[in-house]
Each structure stands twice: as structure tokens, then as C-alpha cells.
């Protein structure tokens, strides 16, 4: 959209755009900035203005404290296990469903698709009243299996992305596989699965962020101390260290860094996922 005039005169509307962007930049970065500077402040600096710089950026006491008391290492390793297992399940099941819906015509196809799509509108948390007793009766309460199974089973957004993608892959590729005598399973595994790579990349990143951020499922199903994940670790830590802002800020910072890095390096996939998922959603 070319709104900028080609005359070279100063354009007030353009100036206004930069004013808005400056305000937004400030609003977005101000809270993280305050967290950042306060994570390095010692307790006796607490009286200083919250936006003053710390006396030293080499004061890592708060970080050491958090590492020590908030089970951060365990939280990260549990979170990693849950993310990895859920993603493997999601990718395998998602591509399988997309293959059947995208490549095989059968009666009841629209019913199956509809069943998956309808499920996406039910807020997961509302059914926990029932799912909780289900998980309990399966003996998975207080185990990593509970969130893994729920993240694989209850969340089916990935089918959208895969289905859109598979419909854009020409059917001639399948046919050439058939001419070579490949089985359908082989065509799925050796031709389509690799071609779905970009969709898988998008999905892996978006789901990683979702699962990393999820609070209530780990909170409800894994109250056991050793089964702490990132979200529940900071919740417990902040609950036990009310108003010790230096410590809490250090914990916030430690937890925010992984997804922020992931985002900065892989933004392309994230944006394409958000745009595709939304337009078709």
C-alpha cells in the first residue's frame, strides 16, 4: 500500500505513524526492561527507582538463588520431555489424519473433518471437570503421561495446517509413486511426509510455545514436587517469595529467554503459521 507521497516533502501522516510506533515500542519494551534491570539488583537496592539501572550487571545472586530454590533445572527437563513426546505424537497423528482426509475419498469424510474442527471450539479447560476423573481412573494422575496424552489428544489444530498443505501438493507425485509400485504407506512416509516439512516446522514451533506456556494442565494433573514444569515452577516460586522482586525478576527472565530466542531465530515459520492458521480458522 503506497501511502507515502513521492514529493519528498515532510508528510505529517507519516510522522504520526512513527509517533504511534514509538509509543508502542515503549509500551511493549517497558515491562521487560524493568524486569531485566531489577533481576540484577541486590536486596538493598530495592529502595531505588524501579527503572534505575542496577549498581552492577555482574550481580548474579538472584539468578543463583532462583536456580537453587525454584527447581529450574528439573522444570526445564520435565517441560522438555512433555514437549518432545507431545510433538512426536502430534506430528505423526496430524500427518496421518491429513493424509486420509486429503488423499482418500470415503463416505463420512466430512463428518470426520467436522468432528475434528468442532473439537477446536471447546475450551479445553471447561471439560477438565470430567477429564480429571478420566485421567485419575487411568492411573495417570501425578505422572508426565497425563499432560502428554492431553496435549496429543485434546488439541487438533495441527490438522488445519497439514490439510491445507497436503492439498497443495500435486497428486501426480502420489501417482508416480504408484507407477513405481510403492505402497500407500510408503507414499505417505517417503513422499508426502518429507514434503510436509515446512508445515511440521511451523507446527513444532507454535506447539512448543503453547505447551511451554500452558499452566493449568500441569497445575491440575501434576501437583507432585518433582513433576514441576516451567509454568508451575515460577508460580510456586513467586508464591513463596512474595514481593522479593529481584528474585522474581530473575526467574521471569530465565523463563522468558528460551522462547524469545526460538522466536527471534525462527520468526518466519511462526508468522506463516499464525497467518495461515488464522485465515482458514
Amino acid at each position, binding site marked *: 500500500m503506497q501511502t507515502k507521497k513521492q514529493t519528498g516533502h515532510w508528510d505529517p501522516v507519516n510522522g504520526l505513524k512513527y509517533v504511534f510506533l514509538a509509543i508502542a515500542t515503549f509500551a511493549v519494551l517497558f*515491562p521487560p526492561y524493568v524486569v531485566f534491570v531489577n533481576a540484577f539488583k541486590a536486596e538493598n537496592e530495592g529502595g531505588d527507582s524501579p527503572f534505575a539501572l542496577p549498581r552492577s550487571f555482574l550481580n548474579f545472586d538472584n539468578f543463583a538463588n532462583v536456580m537453587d530454590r525454584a527447581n529450574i533445572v528439573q522444570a526445564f527437563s520435565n517441560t522438555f520431555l512433555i514437549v518432545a513426546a507431545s510433538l512426536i505424537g502430534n506430528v505423526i497423528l496430524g500427518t496421518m489424519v491429513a493424509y486420509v482426509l486429503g488423499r482418500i475419498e470415503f463416505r463420512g469424510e466430512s463428518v470426520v473433518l467436522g468432528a475434528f474442527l468442532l*473439537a477446536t471450539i*471447546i475450551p479445553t479447560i*471447561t471439560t477438565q471437570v470430567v477429564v480429571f476423573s478420566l485421567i485419575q481412573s487411568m492411573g495417570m494422575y501425578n505422572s508426565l503421561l497425563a499432560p502428554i*496424552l492431553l496435549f496429543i489428544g485434546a488439541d487438533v489444530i495441527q490438522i488445519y495446517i497439514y490439510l491445507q498443505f497436503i492439498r497443495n501438493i500435486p497428486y501426480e507425485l502420489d501417482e508416480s509413486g504408484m507407477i513405481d509400485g510403492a505402497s500407500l504407506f510408503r507414499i505417505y512416509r517417503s513422499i508426502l511426509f518429507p514434503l510436509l516439512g515446512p508445515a511440521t516446522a511451523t507446527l513444532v514451533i507454535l506447539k512448543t510455545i503453547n505447551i511451554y506456556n500452558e499452566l493449568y494442565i500441569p497445575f491440575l494433573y501434576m501437583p507432585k514436587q518433582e513433576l514441576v514444569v516451567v509454568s508451575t515452577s515460577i508460580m510456586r516460586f513467586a508464591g513463596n517469595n512474595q514481593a522479593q522482586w529481584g528474585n522474581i525478576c530473575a526467574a521471569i527472565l530465565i523463563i*522468558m529467554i528460551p522462547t524469545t530466542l526460538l522466536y527471534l531465530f525462527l520468526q518466519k515459520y511462526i508468522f506463516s503459521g499464525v497467518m495461515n492458521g488464522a485465515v482458514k480458522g
Partner: protein
Amino acid sequence: MNNWSYSAQRKLIMVAFLAVPLALLCMFTYYPAVRLLVQSFTDWDGISASSEWLGLDNYKEVFTNPALFGVFLHQIPYVVIGVIQNIVAILFAVILNSKIRGRNAFRVMLFLPFIMNAVAVAFMFQYVFDTTNGSLNALLGFLGLESLQQSWLGNTSIVNYSLASIGFWRFMGYNMVIYLGALQSIPNDMYEAAKIDGSNRFQTLWYLTLPNLTKIIQLNMFLTLSGALSVFDLPFVLTKGGPAGASETFLMKTIETAFQFNNFGLASAMSVVLLAFTVIILAVQNAVLNRKGD
């Protein structure tokens, strides 16, 4: 499998590939939904093997007890802030869709809050909103606006606006990216044509850009509404529903009714009501979108 005909393979693959996903879908989505409905007519306590049939009593309780249904009033600020959030998101999408220096950097930055850990963001804002040490009050003091200093999370009449504005901070960039995607799918020729016809940029915005966004605006509005219906995380983490229950939401009440008061029957009825509202919103959305499509 190689010796099978392709039509036999198709049948086999269809069954094999759909069995597990459909089983999971039934187990964790449809079975709970049906069970929720059945339970909602009983007084089940979550433990006993048996429960008594209450008919519609639970639903009567949901709709007539102001302590339950009345908490929806707390969720109005989330709708208000959500609408503003969409307007601001469109504004920034239009700005970043124009020729402007550093637009990719701005896009990356505005989207950044969305990918941050939700719980970490909540505690970050607890610090922002803190009455004595908080950076917002310090900022207001610095600007000479002491009269606006507040107990942001402790004042019953503004706590929900404070919480909703955290949602604004997190999701504005996300909405913006969605709008940006829609803007980029408007063909450039249309802008060229508008230019040739002598349309100024406000006319272009009003008669060309916004009409092309209608569908996505409606979609986002409905998402905002259903999101506002099921607010949970922020008050759960930050205020525990306080002060004096002012920031409790319907979903928090539901979860509390089930897991603290062991009244699974009533909690199920509340879940069903919430689900019904979500479905109604969706149905209205579909009706509106389809009518526009004709």
C-alpha cells in the same frame, strides 16, 4: 502390503490412520462433553459411585444465584479492552503494511509479547502494577501524574481492567499479524486503481482496505468474545479472584465449585452453560459470515 490392490490399501490405511486420532478425540473431547451434560443433572460429588438425579436444579442454581451468574459482569472489561485491542491492531497493521522504515523490526517487536511465557508475563505485570514498588506508579510519579497512581490490582472497580490490559499487551501483536496477513492478500492493483481514480488515503482506507478486512474483523471479534467468556489464567495467577472476589470469572468459579467444593454436578452445569454460550457465539458468527458471503 505391496501385493494388495490400491483400493484395499486405501481401506486399510484409512482405518489404521484414523483409529488412534479418532479414539483420542472421542475420549478427550466428545465423551467428556456428553458426560458433562449427564453429570449436570445430578449432585455427583466427584468421589461417590452413585449420585442423585436433580433434573434442572443445577441449571436453576446457575442462572438464579447471583454469586455464580453475576460474575460474568467481571468479564465485561475483557470485552471492552478486547474491542480496543482489535482497533489498535488494525491501526498498526495498516501502518506496518505501508512503506515505512524498519517495518520488519517493528513487526517482530510488536509480536514479541505473544510468545512470552504466560505465567512469566503475569508476574511481570504484578510488578508493573504493584502499589508501592510498581513501575507503573513510579512512571506516573515521574511524569508528575501522582493523582493517577492506583492500587491497580487492589481496587475492586479497576482490577478487571488492569487484568484485561495484560491481555491487550500480550495479544495485540498477534491480532496485528493476522490483520497484516489479510492486508497483504489485497491485490496491489486495487490500490493502483484507487490511486488513478484520485482517491486520497483516508478514502482508500475506508472504502478499500476496511471492507476487505470485514471477514477477518468479524472473526477476531468473535474470538475476542469467546476469549472473554473463558478468562481464567490471569486472575487465577495474579489475584486469585480478589480483592473480595471482584476479579473472579465464571470459569474460575466452575473449577472452584468442582475441585474445592466437590460439587461436580453444579460445576458440570456451569461448564455446559459456558459451552452453550461459546456454541451460540460460533453459530451467530457462521450465520453472519455466510450471509455476507452470499
